[in-house]
């Protein structure tokens, strides 16, 4: 933490809406250093290579591939000097397909654009330290996607199931608890909460559960009779 106090986190904003970028920049400059803005995928990939920001705030919906495109193309370009950027997806979309796509492509978190400035700064710091950030919406989605019993096909318990503890943590995030409140309630440390969330992120990225892609389609079609 001490190094973040001396060197403010360097952030790149990638969003195709100029008004939104301006508003976001004004809000963020209270806590982090905004080193650049990109309005599109190609520009973003160029700037990431040039500026090497710590965290990239990524709009999910953009022309020419969107957030997923930026992550894929940056990962392809990854250089030998060990620089590996952290992506935090930022979107107006609640559509789970979009969210899951970006997270599975490699984003370390997802927050909605309605998030408050201080909360976003906290999320950025968290992502910079390699932790995962889930919005309540994403936590709800993950719970839903993993809730259904193992479907057809082989199930890898390491990847396809959530532990009871992970479910508890996700439920509390969905209920609007902050990490430190979750830690207090479950009588564990904040670090442990973070490691649970990171474990869930890993499962979300690697699991082959079909619910992760078919979630939306099933969401309103489930019949319980």
């Amino acid at each position, binding site marked *: 933490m001490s190094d973040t106090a001396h060197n403010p986190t360097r952030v790149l904003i990638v969003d195709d809406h100029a008004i939104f970028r301006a508003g976001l920049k004004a809000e963020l400059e209270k806590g982090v250093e905004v080193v650049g803005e990109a309005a599109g995928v190609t520009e973003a990939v160029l700037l990431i290579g040039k500026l090497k920001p710590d965290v990239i705030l990524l709009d999910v919906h953009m022309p020419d591939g969107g957030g997923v495109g930026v992550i894929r193309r940056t990962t392809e370009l990854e250089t030998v000097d060990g620089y590996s950027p952290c992506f935090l997806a930022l979107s*107006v979309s*609640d559509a789970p397909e979009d969210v899951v796509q970006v997270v599975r492509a490699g984003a370390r978190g997802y927050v909605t654009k*309605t998030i*408050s400035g201080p909360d976003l700064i906290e999320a950025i710091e968290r992502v910079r330290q390699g932790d995962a950030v889930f919005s*309540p*919406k994403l*936590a*709800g989605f993950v*719970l*839903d996607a993993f*809730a259904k019993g193992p479907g057809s096909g082989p199930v890898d318990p390491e990847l396809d199931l959530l532990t009871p503890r992970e479910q508890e943590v996700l*439920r509390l995030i*969905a*209920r*609007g*608890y902050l990490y430190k409140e979750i830690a207090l309630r479950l009588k564990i440390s904040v670090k442990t909460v973070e490691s649970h969330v990171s474990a869930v992120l890993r499962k979300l990225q690697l699991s082959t559960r079909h619910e992760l892609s078919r979630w939306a389609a099933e*969401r*309103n079609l*489930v019949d*319980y*009779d």
Partner: protein
Amino acid sequence: MNPEPRRLRREPDGALIAGVCSGLGRYLDIDRDLIRIAVVVLTLLTSGLAALAYGFAWIVMPVSESPPAQVEEMRPAKRRDSWAVGVGAGLVALGLLFILREAGVWWSDALVWPLVIAAAGAALLWRQFTGSWKPGRTGRRNPAAYRIGFGVALVLGAALLFLYINGALNAGGDAALAAVTVIVVATLVLAPLWLRLGRRLADERAERIRSEERADVAAHLHDSVLQTLAMMQKRSDNPREVSTLARLQERELREWLSGKTGAERQASLGATLETVAAEVEEYHGVPVEAVTVGDRPLDERGLAMAGATREALVNAVRYAGEDGPIRMFAEITPKSAQVFVRDRGPGFDLEGVPDDRRGVRDSIIGRMERNGGRAEVRSEAGEGTEVELTMEMK
């Protein structure tokens, strides 16, 4: 230009018959018309063997998946090679006739020239009519018109020649033969035209549907988004009202985009709870962030639960509306449903709530218990309040 390894494939997009010559031309990097001519010449020289080879190649050559750069070459308006196509079709017909004759299937040599000419004319016509046609290009000097006229003339000429050879043009000639010929000619000339017309009608219908959809979207944006933006400009001195308007509009737009009707949404517990949260937000102008997991059909218990949820949300809005968004989380399984309503307000002491305040006691705890559920209120000074509703479902 083409990074893929060259493979021998048929190219139906550049095809005269089956795209064999076209594919061979691409593979050997030779103009495909040269290959075509060579094939026809070979057919003539070998008494039809080359045509058999063509048929064989048609069967064995795989179809090219992505016709590379073919689109540009094949732009139908620039039908420079239409004449070549006509001539080619005539020559191919000639080749086929030779094969038939060699094979012993034969009626009379008198058929040869009418058939060849008719084939050339028909090919010319089909090529004009069945490509994509730009309606705007039907000018007086349109080369396509010349080609069509020439095609019709060829077909008619072939018919006349045929009838002449068969003596049907003389008085007392074979009337039946003449009638059949007229029908064949009419089919050759009109079929492509008719096909063309059908396709254009389909195009127009698709275009009409598209423009109706556009008008629909425009109307909706006008009724909702633009109106809201105008309202927001008028109310710009009141940030709370502006943010309420924005959220209202956002939700409305999302619903519209998702294409779900109100009736569909009402049928399930999850959707009902989301609607309740939206209504509280709308009515009181305080953001309510709702997350639901799972779903089940709405029944009496579900309705009671929705009622209690609404009361909990209204309470949260009333006492903690200024302290950030209210959160609602609902987890619904086939057996049970749980709803959490959480605010970050000052919190309160449940024991200290006067008896005449019916909100918490009757509308939340009482209602849940009457329906076989339970409600728990946790509140600490400074830590906000959380209402937990639990209901076992039948």
